[in-house]
Protein backbone atom coordinates (compact mmCIF):
# COMPACT_ATOMS: atom_id res chain seq x y z
CA UNK A 1 0.00 0.00 0.00
CA UNK A 2 2.77 2.44 0.78
CA UNK A 3 4.43 1.87 -2.59
CA UNK A 4 4.93 5.24 -4.17
CA UNK A 5 3.95 6.88 -0.93
CA UNK A 6 6.94 6.74 1.33
CA UNK A 7 8.93 8.54 3.92
CA UNK A 8 9.73 11.37 1.55
CA UNK A 9 6.05 12.22 1.28
CA UNK A 10 5.57 11.97 5.01
CA UNK A 11 8.47 14.36 5.58
CA UNK A 12 6.95 16.85 3.17
CA UNK A 13 3.65 16.59 5.00
CA UNK A 14 5.27 17.16 8.38
CA UNK A 15 7.12 20.18 7.08
CA UNK A 16 3.90 21.61 5.69
CA UNK A 17 2.24 20.91 9.03
CA UNK A 18 4.25 23.69 10.64
CA UNK A 19 2.10 26.19 8.73
CA UNK A 20 -0.93 24.51 10.20
CA UNK A 21 0.51 24.97 13.68
CA UNK A 22 1.64 28.54 12.99
CA UNK A 23 -1.72 29.58 11.61
CA UNK A 24 -3.55 27.97 14.54
CA UNK A 25 -1.38 29.65 17.16
CA UNK A 26 -1.60 33.04 15.44
CA UNK A 27 -5.37 32.96 15.03
CA UNK A 28 -5.84 31.62 18.58
CA UNK A 29 -3.67 34.33 20.15
CA UNK A 30 -5.01 37.29 18.16
CA UNK A 31 -8.54 35.94 18.10
CA UNK A 32 -8.27 35.33 21.82
CA UNK A 33 -7.39 38.94 22.55
CA UNK A 34 -10.20 40.16 20.33
CA UNK A 35 -12.55 37.54 21.74
CA UNK A 36 -11.83 38.69 25.28
CA UNK A 37 -12.80 42.22 24.34
CA UNK A 38 -15.92 40.90 22.59
CA UNK A 39 -16.92 38.93 25.69
CA UNK A 40 -16.53 41.95 27.95
CA UNK A 41 -18.52 44.21 25.65
CA UNK A 42 -21.14 41.50 25.20
CA UNK A 43 -21.71 41.48 28.97
CA UNK A 44 -21.58 45.23 29.49
CA UNK A 45 -24.45 47.22 30.89
CA UNK A 46 -25.14 49.13 27.70
CA UNK A 47 -27.83 47.42 25.61
CA UNK A 48 -26.43 49.03 22.46
CA UNK A 49 -22.98 47.52 23.01
CA UNK A 50 -24.53 44.17 23.81
CA UNK A 51 -26.62 44.17 20.65
CA UNK A 52 -23.73 45.16 18.41
CA UNK A 53 -21.47 42.41 19.71
CA UNK A 54 -24.32 39.90 19.61
CA UNK A 55 -24.86 40.78 15.96
CA UNK A 56 -21.13 40.47 15.24
CA UNK A 57 -21.06 37.02 16.80
CA UNK A 58 -24.21 35.88 14.97
CA UNK A 59 -22.86 37.10 11.64
CA UNK A 60 -19.47 35.46 11.96
CA UNK A 61 -20.94 32.24 13.34
CA UNK A 62 -23.52 32.18 10.56
CA UNK A 63 -20.90 32.35 7.82
CA UNK A 64 -18.89 29.37 6.59
CA UNK A 65 -15.15 29.59 7.25
CA UNK A 66 -14.50 29.26 3.54
CA UNK A 67 -16.55 32.38 2.82
CA UNK A 68 -14.72 34.29 5.59
CA UNK A 69 -11.53 33.20 3.91
CA UNK A 70 -12.62 34.35 0.44
CA UNK A 71 -13.88 37.65 1.84
CA UNK A 72 -10.54 38.25 3.54
CA UNK A 73 -8.62 37.22 0.45
CA UNK A 74 -10.62 39.27 -2.06
CA UNK A 75 -11.28 42.02 0.44
CA UNK A 76 -7.61 42.70 1.07
CA UNK A 77 -6.98 42.46 -2.69
CA UNK A 78 -9.31 45.44 -3.12
CA UNK A 79 -6.62 47.64 -1.61
CA UNK A 80 -4.62 46.60 -4.61
CA UNK A 81 -1.87 44.63 -2.97
CA UNK A 82 -0.94 41.07 -3.72
CA UNK A 83 -2.42 39.01 -0.95
CA UNK A 84 -0.26 36.29 0.55
CA UNK A 85 -2.59 33.42 1.46
CA UNK A 86 -1.15 33.31 4.98
CA UNK A 87 -2.27 36.88 5.61
CA UNK A 88 -5.80 36.29 4.33
CA UNK A 89 -6.06 33.05 6.28
CA UNK A 90 -4.78 34.71 9.45
CA UNK A 91 -7.28 37.52 9.17
CA UNK A 92 -10.19 35.18 8.46
CA UNK A 93 -9.35 32.74 11.25
CA UNK A 94 -8.69 35.55 13.72
CA UNK A 95 -12.16 36.96 13.06
CA UNK A 96 -13.55 33.42 13.30
CA UNK A 97 -11.83 32.82 16.64
CA UNK A 98 -12.80 36.18 18.07
CA UNK A 99 -16.49 35.44 17.57
CA UNK A 100 -16.43 31.86 18.86
CA UNK A 101 -14.15 32.55 21.81
CA UNK A 102 -16.10 35.70 22.58
CA UNK A 103 -19.30 33.66 22.76
CA UNK A 104 -17.72 30.90 24.84
CA UNK A 105 -16.26 33.34 27.35
CA UNK A 106 -19.45 35.35 27.45
CA UNK A 107 -21.25 32.16 28.43
CA UNK A 108 -18.73 31.55 31.20
CA UNK A 109 -19.17 35.07 32.57
CA UNK A 110 -22.94 34.65 32.47
CA UNK A 111 -22.59 31.35 34.32
CA UNK A 112 -21.29 33.11 37.41
CA UNK A 113 -24.33 33.44 39.73
CA UNK A 114 -25.84 36.87 40.10
CA UNK A 115 -25.31 36.47 43.84
CA UNK A 116 -21.57 36.93 43.31
CA UNK A 117 -22.24 40.21 41.53
CA UNK A 118 -24.55 41.33 44.36
CA UNK A 119 -22.20 40.39 47.16
CA UNK A 120 -19.24 42.20 45.60
CA UNK A 121 -21.44 45.14 44.66
CA UNK A 122 -22.66 45.39 48.24
CA UNK A 123 -19.07 45.61 49.44
CA UNK A 124 -18.69 48.77 47.36
CA UNK A 125 -16.65 47.41 44.45
CA UNK A 126 -16.69 49.09 41.04
CA UNK A 127 -17.66 47.04 37.99
CA UNK A 128 -14.02 46.70 36.96
CA UNK A 129 -13.08 45.54 40.46
CA UNK A 130 -15.91 43.02 40.40
CA UNK A 131 -14.73 41.65 37.06
CA UNK A 132 -11.05 41.60 37.91
CA UNK A 133 -11.22 40.07 41.41
CA UNK A 134 -14.45 38.14 41.62
CA UNK A 135 -16.10 37.34 38.29
CA UNK A 136 -13.27 36.75 35.80
CA UNK A 137 -11.18 34.47 38.07
CA UNK A 138 -14.19 32.22 38.47
CA UNK A 139 -15.17 32.46 34.81
CA UNK A 140 -11.62 31.60 33.76
CA UNK A 141 -11.70 28.29 35.55
CA UNK A 142 -14.85 27.11 33.82
CA UNK A 143 -13.72 28.47 30.46
CA UNK A 144 -10.75 26.12 30.13
CA UNK A 145 -12.49 22.98 28.78
CA UNK A 146 -14.48 24.72 26.00
CA UNK A 147 -11.52 26.95 25.10
CA UNK A 148 -9.22 23.98 24.59
CA UNK A 149 -12.06 22.32 22.69
CA UNK A 150 -12.24 25.33 20.39
CA UNK A 151 -8.51 25.14 19.72
CA UNK A 152 -9.12 21.69 18.25
CA UNK A 153 -11.81 23.17 16.01
CA UNK A 154 -9.40 25.89 14.93
CA UNK A 155 -6.65 23.47 13.99
CA UNK A 156 -9.10 21.53 11.85
CA UNK A 157 -10.38 24.70 10.21
CA UNK A 158 -6.90 25.70 9.07
CA UNK A 159 -7.35 22.97 6.46
CA UNK A 160 -9.77 25.27 4.62
CA UNK A 161 -6.85 27.61 3.88
CA UNK A 162 -5.69 24.97 1.42
CA UNK A 163 -8.46 26.21 -0.87
CA UNK A 164 -6.73 29.56 -1.24
CA UNK A 165 -3.48 27.74 -1.96
CA UNK A 166 -1.79 28.14 1.40
CA UNK A 167 0.59 25.20 1.42
CA UNK A 168 -0.29 23.86 4.84
CA UNK A 169 -0.87 20.21 5.62
CA UNK A 170 -3.99 19.61 3.53
CA UNK A 171 -2.70 21.42 0.46
CA UNK A 172 0.57 19.56 0.63
CA UNK A 173 -1.46 16.37 0.75
CA UNK A 174 -3.37 17.43 -2.36
CA UNK A 175 -0.15 18.22 -4.19
CA UNK A 176 1.41 14.90 -3.25
CA UNK A 177 -1.72 12.92 -4.10
CA UNK A 178 -1.93 14.60 -7.49
CA UNK A 179 1.68 13.65 -8.14
CA UNK A 180 1.78 10.06 -6.93
CA UNK A 181 -1.79 9.01 -7.71
CA UNK A 182 -2.02 7.35 -4.31
CA UNK A 183 -4.76 9.42 -2.66
CA UNK A 184 -5.66 6.81 -0.08
CA UNK A 185 -2.39 6.53 1.85
CA UNK A 186 -1.67 10.21 1.29
CA UNK A 187 -4.92 11.55 2.70
CA UNK A 188 -4.97 8.98 5.46
CA UNK A 189 -1.50 10.17 6.44
CA UNK A 190 -2.75 13.74 6.40
CA UNK A 191 -5.66 12.72 8.59
CA UNK A 192 -3.32 10.93 10.98
CA UNK A 193 -1.13 13.99 11.41
CA UNK A 194 -4.18 16.11 12.23
CA UNK A 195 -5.29 13.38 14.60
CA UNK A 196 -1.97 13.46 16.41
CA UNK A 197 -2.30 17.23 16.79
CA UNK A 198 -5.94 17.23 17.87
CA UNK A 199 -6.55 14.07 19.86
CA UNK A 200 -4.32 14.94 22.85
CA UNK A 201 -5.94 18.37 23.05
CA UNK A 202 -9.41 16.82 22.91
CA UNK A 203 -8.53 14.44 25.71
CA UNK A 204 -7.04 17.27 27.73
CA UNK A 205 -10.22 19.27 27.33
CA UNK A 206 -12.25 16.29 28.54
CA UNK A 207 -10.02 15.75 31.55
CA UNK A 208 -10.27 19.45 32.43
CA UNK A 209 -14.04 19.13 32.26
CA UNK A 210 -14.05 16.12 34.55
CA UNK A 211 -11.80 17.81 37.07
CA UNK A 212 -14.09 20.81 37.12
CA UNK A 213 -17.11 18.73 38.07
CA UNK A 214 -15.27 16.66 40.65
CA UNK A 215 -14.22 19.84 42.38
CA UNK A 216 -17.81 21.04 42.47
CA UNK A 217 -19.23 17.98 44.16
CA UNK A 218 -17.24 18.36 47.39
Amino acid at each position, binding site marked *: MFGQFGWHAITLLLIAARWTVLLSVLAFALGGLAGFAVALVRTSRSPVSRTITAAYIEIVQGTPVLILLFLAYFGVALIGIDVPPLLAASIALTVFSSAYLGEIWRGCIDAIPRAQWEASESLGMTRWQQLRHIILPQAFRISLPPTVGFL*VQLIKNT*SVASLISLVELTREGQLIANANFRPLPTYVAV*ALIYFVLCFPL*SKYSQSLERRLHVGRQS
Partner: protein
Amino acid sequence: MYHFNFTPVFRKFPEILSGALLTLIISSLAILLGFAVGVVCALLRTNGPKPLRTLVSIYVEAVRNTPFLVQLFIVYFALPTIGIRLTAVEAGILAMVANLGAYAAEIVRAGIEAVHRLQIEAGAALGMSRLQILRHVVLPPAIEAVYPSLTSQFILMMLASSLLSAISVNELTGVAQLLTSLTFRSFEIYFTIGVLYIVLTLLLKAAFQVIGFASFKRWRRLGGANLVFAPVQRFRRMLESARNA
Protein backbone atom coordinates in the same frame (compact mmCIF):
# COMPACT_ATOMS: atom_id res chain seq x y z
CA MET B 1 -10.37 53.26 -5.97
CA TYR B 2 -12.38 50.09 -6.31
CA HIS B 3 -16.00 50.59 -7.24
CA PHE B 4 -18.45 48.17 -5.71
CA ASN B 5 -20.79 46.92 -8.34
CA PHE B 6 -23.51 44.55 -7.32
CA THR B 7 -25.39 44.59 -10.62
CA PRO B 8 -23.73 41.49 -12.07
CA VAL B 9 -24.55 39.75 -8.83
CA PHE B 10 -28.23 40.59 -9.07
CA ARG B 11 -28.33 39.56 -12.71
CA LYS B 12 -27.04 36.15 -11.75
CA PHE B 13 -29.40 35.79 -8.83
CA PRO B 14 -31.35 32.81 -10.26
CA GLU B 15 -28.13 30.79 -10.41
CA ILE B 16 -27.25 31.86 -6.90
CA LEU B 17 -30.66 30.84 -5.64
CA SER B 18 -30.43 27.43 -7.28
CA GLY B 19 -27.10 26.99 -5.54
CA ALA B 20 -28.73 27.89 -2.24
CA LEU B 21 -31.49 25.41 -2.94
CA LEU B 22 -28.96 22.66 -3.56
CA THR B 23 -27.24 23.57 -0.29
CA LEU B 24 -30.56 23.24 1.52
CA ILE B 25 -31.42 19.92 -0.10
CA ILE B 26 -28.01 18.38 0.53
CA SER B 27 -27.92 19.68 4.07
CA SER B 28 -31.42 18.47 4.90
CA LEU B 29 -30.61 15.00 3.63
CA ALA B 30 -27.32 14.93 5.51
CA ILE B 31 -29.02 16.15 8.67
CA LEU B 32 -31.70 13.47 8.58
CA LEU B 33 -29.31 10.64 7.84
CA GLY B 34 -26.59 12.00 10.13
CA PHE B 35 -29.08 12.28 12.97
CA ALA B 36 -30.17 8.67 12.44
CA VAL B 37 -26.57 7.49 12.40
CA GLY B 38 -25.89 9.51 15.52
CA VAL B 39 -28.81 8.03 17.43
CA VAL B 40 -27.88 4.48 16.46
CA CYS B 41 -24.26 5.03 17.45
CA ALA B 42 -25.24 6.66 20.73
CA LEU B 43 -27.46 3.72 21.56
CA LEU B 44 -24.70 1.27 20.67
CA ARG B 45 -22.28 3.25 22.79
CA THR B 46 -24.53 3.16 25.85
CA ASN B 47 -26.27 -0.18 25.48
CA GLY B 48 -24.25 -2.28 23.11
CA PRO B 49 -21.69 -5.05 23.59
CA LYS B 50 -18.13 -4.01 24.30
CA PRO B 51 -16.59 -4.59 20.83
CA LEU B 52 -19.31 -2.44 19.21
CA ARG B 53 -18.81 0.25 21.85
CA THR B 54 -15.10 0.37 21.07
CA LEU B 55 -15.76 0.49 17.34
CA VAL B 56 -18.12 3.42 17.73
CA SER B 57 -15.58 5.21 19.96
CA ILE B 58 -12.89 4.82 17.35
CA TYR B 59 -15.23 6.11 14.65
CA VAL B 60 -16.26 9.11 16.74
CA GLU B 61 -12.72 10.07 17.80
CA ALA B 62 -11.37 9.63 14.26
CA VAL B 63 -14.01 11.92 12.78
CA ARG B 64 -13.94 14.54 15.51
CA ASN B 65 -10.17 14.93 15.46
CA THR B 66 -9.69 15.26 11.71
CA PRO B 67 -10.84 18.06 9.39
CA PHE B 68 -14.03 17.64 7.36
CA LEU B 69 -12.20 18.70 4.21
CA VAL B 70 -9.77 15.81 4.55
CA GLN B 71 -12.65 13.41 5.20
CA LEU B 72 -14.30 14.73 2.06
CA PHE B 73 -11.15 14.18 0.00
CA ILE B 74 -10.82 10.65 1.33
CA VAL B 75 -14.40 9.80 0.35
CA TYR B 76 -14.21 11.40 -3.09
CA PHE B 77 -10.60 10.83 -4.17
CA ALA B 78 -9.35 7.90 -2.14
CA LEU B 79 -12.33 5.52 -2.07
CA PRO B 80 -12.30 5.00 -5.87
CA THR B 81 -8.90 3.35 -5.49
CA ILE B 82 -10.60 0.56 -3.54
CA GLY B 83 -13.48 0.36 -5.95
CA ILE B 84 -16.04 2.74 -4.43
CA ARG B 85 -16.72 5.37 -7.06
CA LEU B 86 -19.18 8.10 -6.15
CA THR B 87 -20.38 11.25 -7.83
CA ALA B 88 -19.37 14.48 -6.22
CA VAL B 89 -22.82 15.01 -4.68
CA GLU B 90 -22.95 11.43 -3.38
CA ALA B 91 -19.48 11.72 -1.92
CA GLY B 92 -20.36 15.05 -0.36
CA ILE B 93 -23.48 13.71 1.30
CA LEU B 94 -21.70 10.58 2.50
CA ALA B 95 -18.89 12.61 4.03
CA MET B 96 -21.41 14.94 5.68
CA VAL B 97 -23.41 12.05 7.09
CA ALA B 98 -20.28 10.38 8.43
CA ASN B 99 -19.11 13.65 9.98
CA LEU B 100 -22.43 14.69 11.45
CA GLY B 101 -23.10 11.16 12.66
CA ALA B 102 -20.03 11.23 14.85
CA TYR B 103 -20.89 14.57 16.43
CA ALA B 104 -24.53 13.66 16.84
CA ALA B 105 -23.48 10.39 18.47
CA GLU B 106 -21.59 12.22 21.19
CA ILE B 107 -24.33 14.78 21.75
CA VAL B 108 -27.13 12.21 21.93
CA ARG B 109 -25.00 9.99 24.14
CA ALA B 110 -24.70 12.79 26.67
CA GLY B 111 -28.48 13.17 26.54
CA ILE B 112 -29.04 9.47 27.07
CA GLU B 113 -26.67 9.35 30.01
CA ALA B 114 -28.48 12.27 31.57
CA VAL B 115 -31.75 10.38 31.75
CA HIS B 116 -32.19 9.45 35.37
CA ARG B 117 -31.79 5.80 36.24
CA LEU B 118 -35.05 5.93 38.19
CA GLN B 119 -36.95 6.59 34.99
CA ILE B 120 -35.51 3.47 33.41
CA GLU B 121 -36.29 1.44 36.50
CA ALA B 122 -39.86 2.73 36.45
CA GLY B 123 -40.18 1.58 32.85
CA ALA B 124 -38.79 -1.82 33.70
CA ALA B 125 -41.13 -2.10 36.68
CA LEU B 126 -44.04 -1.51 34.32
CA GLY B 127 -42.95 -4.51 32.32
CA MET B 128 -41.45 -2.67 29.33
CA SER B 129 -38.84 -4.43 27.22
CA ARG B 130 -35.37 -2.96 26.85
CA LEU B 131 -36.20 -1.66 23.39
CA GLN B 132 -39.48 -0.14 24.54
CA ILE B 133 -37.74 1.59 27.41
CA LEU B 134 -35.19 3.05 25.02
CA ARG B 135 -37.81 4.19 22.57
CA HIS B 136 -40.35 5.66 25.01
CA VAL B 137 -38.54 6.48 28.24
CA VAL B 138 -34.96 7.25 27.28
CA LEU B 139 -34.74 8.70 23.79
CA PRO B 140 -37.47 11.38 23.83
CA PRO B 141 -36.25 13.24 26.94
CA ALA B 142 -32.64 12.65 25.87
CA ILE B 143 -33.19 14.32 22.52
CA GLU B 144 -35.24 17.11 24.01
CA ALA B 145 -32.48 17.82 26.51
CA VAL B 146 -29.75 18.05 23.89
CA TYR B 147 -31.91 19.64 21.19
CA PRO B 148 -30.07 23.00 21.28
CA SER B 149 -26.61 21.41 20.92
CA LEU B 150 -27.92 19.06 18.27
CA THR B 151 -29.51 21.76 16.14
CA SER B 152 -26.39 23.92 16.51
CA GLN B 153 -24.37 21.07 15.10
CA PHE B 154 -26.86 20.66 12.25
CA ILE B 155 -26.45 24.30 11.34
CA LEU B 156 -22.66 23.98 11.49
CA MET B 157 -22.96 21.07 9.06
CA MET B 158 -25.01 23.17 6.67
CA LEU B 159 -22.25 25.80 6.78
CA ALA B 160 -19.62 23.11 6.23
CA SER B 161 -21.43 22.06 3.06
CA SER B 162 -19.66 25.05 1.52
CA LEU B 163 -16.58 22.85 1.33
CA LEU B 164 -18.32 20.63 -1.21
CA SER B 165 -17.35 23.33 -3.69
CA ALA B 166 -13.83 21.92 -3.43
CA ILE B 167 -15.03 18.80 -5.23
CA SER B 168 -16.98 20.83 -7.78
CA VAL B 169 -20.48 20.50 -6.37
CA ASN B 170 -22.57 23.47 -7.49
CA GLU B 171 -24.05 24.30 -4.13
CA LEU B 172 -24.04 27.93 -3.02
CA THR B 173 -20.27 28.35 -2.70
CA GLY B 174 -19.62 26.34 -5.84
CA VAL B 175 -21.94 28.62 -7.81
CA ALA B 176 -20.15 31.62 -6.31
CA GLN B 177 -16.79 30.35 -7.50
CA LEU B 178 -18.20 29.81 -10.97
CA LEU B 179 -19.60 33.32 -11.05
CA THR B 180 -16.37 34.95 -9.87
CA SER B 181 -14.56 33.41 -12.79
CA LEU B 182 -17.28 34.80 -15.07
CA THR B 183 -17.73 38.30 -13.68
CA PHE B 184 -14.58 38.94 -11.62
CA ARG B 185 -16.75 40.67 -9.02
CA SER B 186 -15.28 38.43 -6.35
CA PHE B 187 -15.85 40.51 -3.26
CA GLU B 188 -19.43 41.44 -4.12
CA ILE B 189 -20.29 37.86 -4.91
CA TYR B 190 -18.84 36.41 -1.74
CA PHE B 191 -20.42 39.16 0.32
CA THR B 192 -23.82 38.27 -1.12
CA ILE B 193 -23.15 34.59 -0.55
CA GLY B 194 -22.20 35.36 3.04
CA VAL B 195 -25.49 37.16 3.57
CA LEU B 196 -27.35 34.23 2.01
CA TYR B 197 -25.67 31.78 4.36
CA ILE B 198 -26.80 33.91 7.30
CA VAL B 199 -30.32 33.85 5.88
CA LEU B 200 -30.10 30.06 5.52
CA THR B 201 -28.88 29.84 9.13
CA LEU B 202 -31.84 31.86 10.34
CA LEU B 203 -34.22 29.77 8.21
CA LEU B 204 -32.87 26.56 9.67
CA LYS B 205 -33.05 27.94 13.20
CA ALA B 206 -36.69 28.85 12.67
CA ALA B 207 -37.42 25.45 11.17
CA PHE B 208 -35.83 23.72 14.16
CA GLN B 209 -37.92 25.86 16.50
CA VAL B 210 -41.08 24.78 14.72
CA ILE B 211 -40.03 21.13 14.76
CA GLY B 212 -39.23 21.41 18.43
CA PHE B 213 -42.61 22.91 19.11
CA ALA B 214 -44.31 20.14 17.23
CA SER B 215 -42.31 17.38 18.90
CA PHE B 216 -41.90 18.44 22.49
CA LYS B 217 -45.06 18.77 24.54
CA ARG B 218 -43.19 20.67 27.24
CA TRP B 219 -42.38 23.46 24.80
CA ARG B 220 -46.05 23.91 24.03
CA ARG B 221 -46.90 24.00 27.75
CA LEU B 222 -44.23 26.62 28.41
CA GLY B 223 -46.08 28.77 25.91
CA GLY B 224 -43.25 29.45 23.57
CA ALA B 225 -40.61 30.91 25.82
CA ASN B 226 -38.34 30.12 22.93
CA LEU B 227 -36.13 32.11 20.69
CA VAL B 228 -38.07 32.65 17.50
CA PHE B 229 -41.46 33.27 19.00
CA ALA B 230 -40.42 35.30 22.05
CA PRO B 231 -39.47 38.43 20.11
CA VAL B 232 -42.74 38.19 18.21
CA GLN B 233 -44.71 37.93 21.47
CA ARG B 234 -42.77 40.79 23.03
CA PHE B 235 -43.43 42.94 19.98
CA ARG B 236 -47.15 42.14 20.12
CA ARG B 237 -47.30 42.90 23.84
CA MET B 238 -45.49 46.20 23.25
CA LEU B 239 -48.00 47.17 20.58
CA GLU B 240 -50.85 46.34 22.93
CA SER B 241 -49.50 48.37 25.81
CA ALA B 242 -48.80 51.26 23.45
CA ARG B 243 -52.35 51.04 22.21
CA ASN B 244 -53.76 50.93 25.72
CA ALA B 245 -51.57 53.72 27.10
